[in-house]
């Protein structure tokens, strides 16, 4: 369990995110904790103190399919429902060996900024090299329904911010030239 590390004031209390969500199925879910003054937190929207983003205080769902391998390696697809409950964005303020601290706020702007500490292990491997003070992140909380199982999900994404350079456009030009060459040299029908 990771705890937030907001540093000031006696009126602050630890807020375990899991207590703000109605479902208690915590299996396979990381559970970072936010530390924030309770009187500054504006949990709003639907009942059960659940922050809900989306029209009519309902949540967004998407429908996608997950391809998996069945018996004898035969692939099949299962429908997956995903319900987004909350999105935060934030800025990394400190990185240690195993954890990092970020200042985060609800993406819809309807809540207080908070500070939270996360496990580096919860960042996708390919994003970890982007993890440094000043890095931008998103934190998504939601529910996934698949094969009859409803579980809470939590995902951290370190945002990719491109560095503009002459090289980028040069690279684009070179790819374009290759495609054009291939197109012009392709046999034509007729």
């Amino acid at each position, binding site marked *: 369990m990771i705890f937030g590390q907001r540093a000031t004031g006696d009126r602050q209390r630890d807020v375990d995110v899991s207590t703000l969500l109605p479902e208690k199925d915590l299996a396979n879910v990381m559970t970072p904790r936010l530390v924030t003054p309770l009187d500054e937190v504006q949990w709003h929207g639907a009942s059960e103190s659940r922050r809900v983003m989306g*029209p009519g205080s309902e949540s967004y769902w*998407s429908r996608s399919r997950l391809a998996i391998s069945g018996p004898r390696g035969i692939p099949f697809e299962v429908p997956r429902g995903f319900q987004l409950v909350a999105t935060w964005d934030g800025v990394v303020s400190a990185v240690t060996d195993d954890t990092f601290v970020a200042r985060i706020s609800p993406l819809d702007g309807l809540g207080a900024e908070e500070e939270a500490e996360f496990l580096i292990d919860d960042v996708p491997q390919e994003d970890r090299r982007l993890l440094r003070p000043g890095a931008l992140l998103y934190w998504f909380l939601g529910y996934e329904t698949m094969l009859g199982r409803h579980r809470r999900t939590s995902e951290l994404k370190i945002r990719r911010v491109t560095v503009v350079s002459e090289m980028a456009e040069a690279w684009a030009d070179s790819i374009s030239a290759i495609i054009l060459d291939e197109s012009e040299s392709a046999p034509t029908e007729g």
Partner: protein
Amino acid sequence: MTDPSTASAEQPIVGTSIVLVGSFNPAIIHPSWFARFEILPPSDLEAVDTPDLAAIVTPEFARFAISWLRVQVTVDHFELSTLEPDRVPLLRDAGVNIFRLLSHTPISAMGINRTAHYPLKSGQWSTLPSTLAPASAWAPVADAASLVSLTVQVDRADDGDPGFIRITAEPSQRFAGGLFVAVNDHHDLESANLHKEAAPAVDILGSGWSKAIAAHDRYTKFLIGLAGGK
């Protein structure tokens, strides 16, 4: 045990897209370019190798898709779209990153668009036409008139940007008796973009994104409320 397809069948389906109008070079919209400049993470792009998601890149047309993002480009349109609710912010980031890199791309207009299918209780859709376009108004010329599609245009008064917001309401084709809402947040960049570059579009994606998403939610909630839903 709950059938997951049933469990999710009653939930809204929401799509989000960025559509740019201008002059584009589809031949560069290749997954390798996205990988080279880290617009998308490598694990996302691995899926492009699967047959269903294979990239098509020609001088006139480019298309590829990954698990959450669809990219389609012609010489005058560039579209990025997602159906995944937890990827909407990443869609914005992708748009910003692409046109930061391709900063000299002439862009004349941009739409931040949302489409959504909402299930409604039986009979609720019928309350919308009676409010927005009552059949009685057509009584002098038609015995039976029904609303198939309604588009309303509103000014973007809060930011003063050239353009408009169009809200379309129709019966959903995905949910029987449900509501389909499309919101086109259109930005006309021609007049304010003397150098015809990508910067104004990038600026709007950066600063106006949340407002556009919130506006969609507001209009949709209004329509659902008119229909007696919640």
